[in-house]
């Protein structure tokens, strides 16, 4: 069952020209789009205002105050937070791609005892709320349960717990399962084992799904809040989200600086989203359908 492809065929048909009958649909869609986008417009516009303009019911600033960004940037250590968020995202993405490619391949292409049971157990973890797991996880990384030392407030504590999620394994498995068996037969004739087949044939073929996995992981890591709030007590590895939160609560900034800080936090995600939105939405749609 390849739903994404069917959807794709349909989406490639050129849309019909505008007709008057479409007007109500456009009105409704535009209303939705306005509701979706207004907060972003408000944020951008306010981030460029001066203090007087923010309390003046003004829609747009008279003169854009680009200095607000410099001020927000230097008031809170946004440069450090930005660096941290980028490093955390890159490390988590690499970890997720490594574990999920291997596991997705084995679940998709090798028959072994316990395969379905293990896979079902992995999938069931998607139902477990993070509010239940964070307490023991905290003790785990503090070294209370396993004597591996205290790694609170370190890079591994912020990344390793997120190195493996059932959702991405599931996504990869679906894709790998559709790779034709002939390719595997040919590789085996050449004397290749599973690992070499995976690295030399499957991975290069699977670039779209790997990109989707990387993107979803990026957004999740960038937006993660509870865990880094819990375990970063110094700014050393504090990511942008928590940094913005401490900026709000500790500095109590004026609206225009707060909005500038929000823009700084949002912009990297938006840039990546704009360039890759097709892979994003299709990856999510596919996994949603098959779940």
């Amino acid at each position, binding site marked *: 069952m390849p739903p994404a492809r069917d959807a794709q065929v349909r989406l490639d048909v050129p849309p019909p020209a505008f007709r008057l009958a479409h007007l109500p649909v456009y009105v409704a869609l535009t209303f939705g789009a306005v509701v979706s986008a207004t907060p972003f417009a408000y*944020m951008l516009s306010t981030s460029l205002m001066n203090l007087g303009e923010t309390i003046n019911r003004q829609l747009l600033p008279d003169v854009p105050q680009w200095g607000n960004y410099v001020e927000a940037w230097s008031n809170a250590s946004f440069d450090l937070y930005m660096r941290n968020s980028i490093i955390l995202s890159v490390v988590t993405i690499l970890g997720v791609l490594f574990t999920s490619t291997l596991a997705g391949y084995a679940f998709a292409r090798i028959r*072994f005892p316990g395969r379905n049971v293990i896979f079902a157990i992995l999938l069931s973890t998607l139902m477990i709320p993070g509010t239940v797991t964070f307490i023991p996880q905290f003790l785990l990384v503090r070294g209370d349960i396993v004597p591996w030392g205290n790694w609170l407030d370190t890079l591994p504590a912020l990344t390793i717990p997120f190195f493996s999620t059932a959702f991405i394994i599931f996504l990869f498995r679906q894709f790998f399962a559709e790779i034709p068996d002939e390719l595997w037969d040919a590789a085996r004739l050449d004397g290749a084992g599973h690992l070499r087949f995976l690295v030399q044939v499957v991975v290069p073929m699977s670039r779209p799904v790997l990109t989707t996995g990387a993107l979803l992981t990026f957004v999740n890591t960038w937006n993660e809040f509870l865990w880094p709030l819990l375990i970063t007590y110094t700014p050393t590895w504090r990511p942008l*989200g928590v940094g913005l939160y401490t900026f709000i609560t500790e500095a109590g900034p004026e609206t225009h600086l707060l909005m500038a800080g929000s823009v700084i936090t949002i912009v990297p995600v938006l840039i990546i989203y704009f360039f890759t939105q097709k892979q994003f939405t299709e990856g999510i749609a596919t996994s949603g359908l098959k779940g």
Partner: protein
Amino acid sequence: MRWRGEWITAYAMIFPATALIAIFGLFPIGYAIYMSLYRWRIRQGGFVGLDNYETVLGDWGGAAAFFGGLLLILVAHHLWTRAFRAHAGWRRYGPLVGALTLASAGIAISLGWSRMVEAGEARFLGGLIRTTYYGFLSVPIQIVLALILASLLFQRLRGSETFRMLFFLPYVTPAVAGAAVYAALFSPRPERPINTLLGWFGIPPQDWLFETDPVLELLANGVLARIARLAGTEPIEVALSGFWAGPSLALVTIIVFGIWTYTGYNAVIFLAGLANIPRDLYEAAEIDGANGRQRFLHVTIPMLSPVTFYLTVLGFIGTFQAFTHLYVMRVPATRDAVDTASVVIFDTFYKRNDFSLAAAQSIVLFVIILILTLFNQRVLGGRGAR
């Protein structure tokens, strides 16, 4: 299966992922149960059995009635739809017995709950009520709005790619930043956008995230004040309280944010579901003389029900553990009006440092989520399979 060398390869390949999920996903559940049986404030203390649960739930009889009532709803649904189907003579009693069971479930839940509230932990139990408001208000609205948006997008008009991109935008936005922007939009100051918008319709500015009064009370008083002004008399003020008074305006504002975030995400999944419905079903319905509305009700909705089921389950799990935007948007004055169970659990752990009580609270929340998932599976999943 005969033993084969590639099994070793397979186990080695799944090992990193499986071990990590076992350590950081599955093990914590068992360990949270273990912790909840001890006194544990930062460091482990003595074994206390079920004391933490008693602190949270207050009254064992009440808790038994409450959870029994929740399960009884499932039984009622089963009786209603299936139980008596086999015997033709008994069939018509199914709905009747189901309705009676449902009524007794309702009585058990409300009586059990009132006994729990008397002796239990007010903050957590209040948090559960607010979680219930949050989940049961946002999930259905999200899903209905998403289905409407998806059907509109599915018409394949010019520019629908752009619309889809815009609708999905809130989902990728970091919740801390999004919540900060919402707090500014919904600021209680009269000159801020949302209060300005209300002003155009002659509605006085509201306190939004700072308003602890139930939203129904505010609405009723607003209407009464208007009537009084028309009649030229002194306005009457009403005060509502209890579960049926509904959530505070502060919580409703947060719910609006949740809907804003997830509607586009749901719409994208619905859209793929729509593309997946075979065209010939619609053609067959058309030949049978079904109009657009009938095709939507009798083809689209049933064919989408697996997607709806998936989104409902995910929606409830998501709303019952929602944390970030709630935590960012709450203000000290409104804690008892907005803190959901997950925020209370975090505070019990992080601010009060009572690890075992927080663990017990989290297990109670987990059990409720499990019952809810089971319920979704019976009610929505069953419809898809039929």
